[in-house]
């Protein structure tokens, strides 16, 4: 009997085999293989006409809205059941477009954005006023979660303190500066974004280097990808509407900077 109980606690109730990629439902914490429970979550709504934002636990029938997986003692991943961008209140079309960007090869740089000039001209010394909203939206899109303030504060805090320390001097080449910046942002973001960290850092660098506000940046970006997304910022997309029209940051030429140093 003991033996039987043991074996059943280690096997997945869906495939009856030992659990692969241990996953839990967020309400009852019943344990399944990731693929098994994901398949079940996808299969059930396909039988009903209405889309559901939860999965019923095969064991206890409690409704969970996400699958928790890759738990390693400190962090975990979460798969939301049927993430529906039309109905969920925070996940706007803009979020969806940003998430989609991460499924596209980063490819070549956007024409109008010169990243090296950003570093060579010390533009990074200027705080970017849209960074908070941008990072916020980016993290929301990537994690598909609404409340990401802590993560955003963390990342921006790291960037701010890096900028403050930078201004105290210590002359190193723009290339090293860039490297350093990307490293500290990656370190700050990695626990949350994991595999997407490097891409996120590149996207963030591109955004700050563009010196554009979010709305303008999105237009440039979408244009670059050649996507046809008519007005991603219409409707109830407040986050984007709040921003001022295109106002480029003050731009310094290399001579200006050299003169002041």
């Amino acid at each position: 009997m003991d033996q039987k109980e043991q074996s059943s606690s280690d096997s997945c109730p869906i495939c009856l085999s030992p659990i692969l990629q241990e996953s839990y439902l967020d309400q009852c914490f019943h344990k399944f293989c990731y693929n098994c429970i994901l398949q079940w979550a996808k299969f059930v709504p396909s039988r009903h006409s209405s889309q559901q934002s939860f999965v019923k636990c095969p064991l206890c029938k409690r409704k969970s809205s996400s699958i928790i997986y890759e738990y390693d003692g400190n962090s975990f991943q979460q798969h939301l059941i049927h993430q529906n961008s039309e109905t969920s209140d925070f996940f706007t079309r803009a979020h969806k477009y940003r998430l989609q960007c991460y499924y596209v090869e980063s490819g070549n740089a956007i024409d109008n954005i010169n990243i090296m000039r950003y570093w060579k001209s010390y533009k990074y010394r200027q705080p970017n006023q849209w960074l908070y909203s941008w990072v916020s939206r980016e993290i929301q899109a990537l994690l598909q979660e609404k409340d990401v303030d802590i993560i955003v504060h963390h990342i921006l805090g790291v960037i701010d303190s890096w900028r403050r320390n930078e201004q105290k001097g210590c002359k190193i080449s723009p290339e090293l500066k860039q490297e350093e910046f990307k490293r500290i942002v990656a370190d700050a973001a990695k626990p949350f974004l994991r595999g997407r960290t490097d891409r996120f850092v590149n996207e963030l660098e591109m955004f700050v280097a563009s010196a554009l506000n979010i709305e303008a940046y999105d237009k440039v970006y979408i244009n670059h990808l050649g996507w046809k997304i008519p007005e991603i910022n219409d409707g109830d997309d407040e986050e984007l509407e709040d921003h001022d029209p295109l106002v480029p940051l003050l731009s310094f030429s290399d001579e200006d900077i050299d003169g002041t140093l």
Partner: protein
Amino acid sequence: MQASRARLFKEYKEVQREKVADPDIQLVCDDSNIFKWTALIKGPSETPYEGGVFQLAFSVPEQYPLQPPQVRFLTKIFHPNVHFKTGEICLDILKNAWSPAWTLQSVCRAIIALMAHPEPDSPLNCDSGNLLRSGDVRGFQSMAKMYTRLAAMPKKG
């Protein structure tokens, strides 16, 4: 397809192991097709089905265990939730309330429980349902017992 096959194979092994554990259920897999099973279940005691042995036919879909198996009685049975002619069973867990955590074995247990506790309000066999709904428990029991004798018990001599 592969997943359902693997899962059915697991169940097959489990059944071999548990055969002694549940004397009321005997599940047998078709020799050549793992998607076809038959089961012999004993009529629960203190019911009109007591003493009878009922045969069930399972047809397992490729999407199993996401989809429930199709089960029907091969043995004639007089029960409000079983179609008298086709043997079709009206049981929620075989339809909307299905969960992939059910197994063929546990489905058999659920069917035994349904035999002991008919649901006359969702009848597939109206005559049987009406007897119970009108309160004629004796009438229902004697009909059910008669069909158990006729169809589910080995002929004597």
